[in-house]
């Protein structure tokens, strides 16, 4: 196995911890509904929303928290959220229909991303706010409004390509939004379509972990709003998108030890830590480390609502150095945010049954075959490394001592590895055990799932606490009025 086991234990808040302890429930669920199985915990999303709200309150900011629907298809999570005061950010016709059907009224929905005509029309008809990607989409929207005699549509302008003065912050290029350099022609279009659209503000979504880049964008958005006002428009909101992050691991030390060991393995200074010596983007060239680590920074000291708080505390150099929160407030702007992953933190887990445990050579990692496909448990696809929790099967006696394993699925592909890294488990699993992958609700449940080889995609259930017990129903059967569940 090569040295001490390198555990990456999941961060578990009380709800998920309690659910994982309900081993009887989890076993009977997989017995009845098969493996793999997703379990979502709708009450947690309401609690996460409240954490975002408290950041808003601390800064006296008004505005909406829009859940980025793309991160999970669950109806239960969406309906639970409909019973709060949150909004939802939809990126397709299907998501919009789903949100309307879950009870979100149009004033609580924004439509983002590239849009086809049907999506635009339904958004315009129902009165959803549209985050407009560019001048072309604005023209298209205005034409729809006129042709079908709809009421004027509220729009946000999605911007990108923000620049700083002094120090140039290079930003990852985005295919979405209009570069701020082209704001003037876009505003001319807004004015030209004054009968069909009403500008309510500007938006951006940056795919980066960097607070500095986001602060640059927010500062740029404030400048863009000033440009709107100087033309006599009356914007009142900034939408800062999502990307606030999740901390997946319980212990910083484990993450640090793991990444250090990975570096050493890539440089050939210790045995490989991955299937086939995969380096997650790193490679060794004559003793020097090259490339970048293509992994999600799985332990974060600041994530989710705390990340938003940190962003809001950043000083805006071009606006006198005041914190961004103070500037938003003083300018009387609403703050909109669109957390996806961060709102789904601790909102679910994925269960997979162990089918086979095979030894390769003596002392090597065990091969553990799960009743699952890699795309059903897509943590690895997002570069998230976190250990599964072993839940003993009903008859199985626990194996002794830590083991190193490779987890793979049921497809006929060599690449159907559920983890490319060697996973360390506190004991040898046996057929019939369940492996529970915690915190999979954000992007790791159905973002990638396919129906290849006639293998069904994982089913999904919603679970909630009823006193000391856990109760559940099929995801699609959950409503916030489900007995004892959700928002009583």
């Amino acid at each position, binding site marked *: 196995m090569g040295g001490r086991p390198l555990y990456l234990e999941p961060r578990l808040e009380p709800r998920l911890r309690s659910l994982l302890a309900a081993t009887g429930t989890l076993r009977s669920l997989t017995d009845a509904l098969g493996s793999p199985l997703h379990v979502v915990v709708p009450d947690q999303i309401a609690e996460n929303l409240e954490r975002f709200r408290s950041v808003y309150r601390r800064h006296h900011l008004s505005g909406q928290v829009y859940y980025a629907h793309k991160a999970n298809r669950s109806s239960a999570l969406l309906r639970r959220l409909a019973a709060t005061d949150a909004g939802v950010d939809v990126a397709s016709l299907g998501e919009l229909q789903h949100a309307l059907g879950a009870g979100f009224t149009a004033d609580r929905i924004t439509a983002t991303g590239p849009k086809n005509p049907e999506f635009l029309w339904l958004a315009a008809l129902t009165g959803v706010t549209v985050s407009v990607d560019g001048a072309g989409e604005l023209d298209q929207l205005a034409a729809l409004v006129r042709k079908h005699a709809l009421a004027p549509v509220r729009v946000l302008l999605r911007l990108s390509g923000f620049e700083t003065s002094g120090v140039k912050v290079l930003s990852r290029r985005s295919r979405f939004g209009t570069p701020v350099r082209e704001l003037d022609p876009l505003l001319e279009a807004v004015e030209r379509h004054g009968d069909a659209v009403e500008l309510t503000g500007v938006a951006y979504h940056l795919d980066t972990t960097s607070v500095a880049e986001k602060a640059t964008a927010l500062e740029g958005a404030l400048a863009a709003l000033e440009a709107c006002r100087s033309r006599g428009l009356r914007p009142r909101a900034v939408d800062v998108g999502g990307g606030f992050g999740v901390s997946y691991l319980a212990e910083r030390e484990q993450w640090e030890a793991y990444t250090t060991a990975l570096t050493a393995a890539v440089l050939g200074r210790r045995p490989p830590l991955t299937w086939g010596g995969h380096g997650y983007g790193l490679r060794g060239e004559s003793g*020097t480390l090259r490339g970048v680590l293509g992994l999600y920074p799985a332990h974060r000291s600041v994530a989710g609502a705390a990340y938003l708080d940190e962003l809001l505390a950043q000083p805006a150099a071009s606006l006198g150095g005041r914190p961004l929160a103070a500037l938003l407030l003083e300018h009387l702007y609403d703050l909109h945010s669109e957390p996806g992953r961060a709102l789904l933190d601790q909102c679910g887990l994925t269960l997979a049954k162990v089918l086979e445990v095979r030894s390769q050579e003596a002392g090597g990692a065990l091969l553990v075959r799960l009743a699952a496909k890699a795309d059903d448990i897509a943590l690895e696809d997002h570069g998230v490394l976190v250990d599964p929790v072993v839940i003993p099967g009903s008859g199985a006696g626990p194996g002794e001592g830590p083991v190193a394993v490779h987890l793979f699925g049921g497809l006929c592909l060599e690449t159907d590895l559920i983890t490319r890294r060697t996973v360390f488990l506190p004991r040898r699993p046996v057929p019939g055990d369940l492996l529970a992958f915690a915190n999979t609700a954000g992007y790791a449940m159905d973002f990638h799932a396919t129906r290849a080889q006639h293998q069904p995609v994982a089913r999904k259930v919603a679970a909630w606490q009823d006193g000391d017990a856990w109760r559940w129903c099929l995801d699609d059967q959950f409503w916030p009025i489900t007995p004892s569940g959700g928002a009583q």
Partner: protein
Amino acid sequence: MRYDSITDAIGNTPLVRIDPAVHGLRNIDLFAKLEMLNPFGSVKDRAAWNMARPLLAEAVEHGSQVVELSSGNTAKALAVVAGMHGLGFKSVTNRMRVPEIKDLLLLLGAQIEELPGQSECLDPTATDDPLTLFHRTLSASGSTYLHTDQYYNPRNTEAHLTGTGPEIVKDLDGRVPDWFVACVGTAGSSTGVARALREEDPSVRVVGLVAAKSDFIPGIRTIDEVQEVGLFDPETYDTMESVSADEAIEGMLTLNRRCGILGGPTGGAAYHGAVRHLRAVDEELTERRTAVFIVCDRVESYLSYVRQRRPDLLGRPPRKNSPADLTDAEVGGAPSVTVAEARRWIDSEGPLVVDLRSPYAYAALHIDGSVNIVDELFAELLQGGVPFSRSRPVLLACPVGEQSARYAALLTRMGHPDVRSLAGGIIAWRDAGAPLVRD
């Protein structure tokens, strides 16, 4: 000492003994090599000059821009050297986290580009990381860059092999120290010095210091980050040890306050790491030994780093007339008016309306006839007393009525007879449909 050019003043830095009463080692003489006394302020002056010098004539001919991946000291030295030769300098980095250094570089005429952060929605198949792109841009044919490439350039190490190392031996009267302790950034100084010392006496022990993994000490790398450095070879060091940011600052304070050596956090880390390492062996020694560590640069550039981590060290005396020393009862009892009352009051008595928001927010929309004194400035003004006549009533306004209540309470305490706070602030004013103007 007379020189023809400031670059002639690079090197020949002093080796200063640390008072044993400070470090407490009984059998070891500990010396600091004061690289902070190089003309541009750091150990990097040597490497920057040695790397750039042979390429300057050609660069001047082509009008090349000097570029380097640097977060501070190398950039500073290169910016000066480039400027002296009429060349531009650009620093590309994602590590420049100390604002004063950014400002200083801009002052020296540098252009700074910050690399984008990691993608939040990770695509593990992406290969175009920003650094790879940077190198590709540089090596594209026909580009006119002078890339000093400090992490791979052997002339970085060479500057210390021929300069810093031999200077230490000379100042120790031809003896090689028993220990050499240095922080590892580009690994240039530690590798060059170590090699020079070992050539004279292979028994020297070399201690490399890195930052604790989750910590940030400007200029030093962590144990993983050093693996990305082309000049780094683990064989160079007899041991690698890590230092936390707190320890670095503590070490820096000792150098600053007790030794009169105004070194920065890296020097502090080297001092701390040296004393920690040597204390263990000191007990067992029976004869005198010598150790040398490097003080890389000066403290002045790191004040905001210190302020962030140890605000207690920069504590200022309490201020007079500060809104901070009001009691909750005083704030709660501050005179206030509702929007409707305020509108009537403005019409009837014309109080001075003071808007405490930033000038940008004020410029965008404000109450007609109001003056703008941003809260920070207002706080300053109040230290000297009430800044307007007591005979005129005053209405204070802020976003939600919280700050204005504090200042209304403070001014009341200071003796102003009629100051009121706008309840609910400008937001309540707007929500009540009262007029806001931009003029």
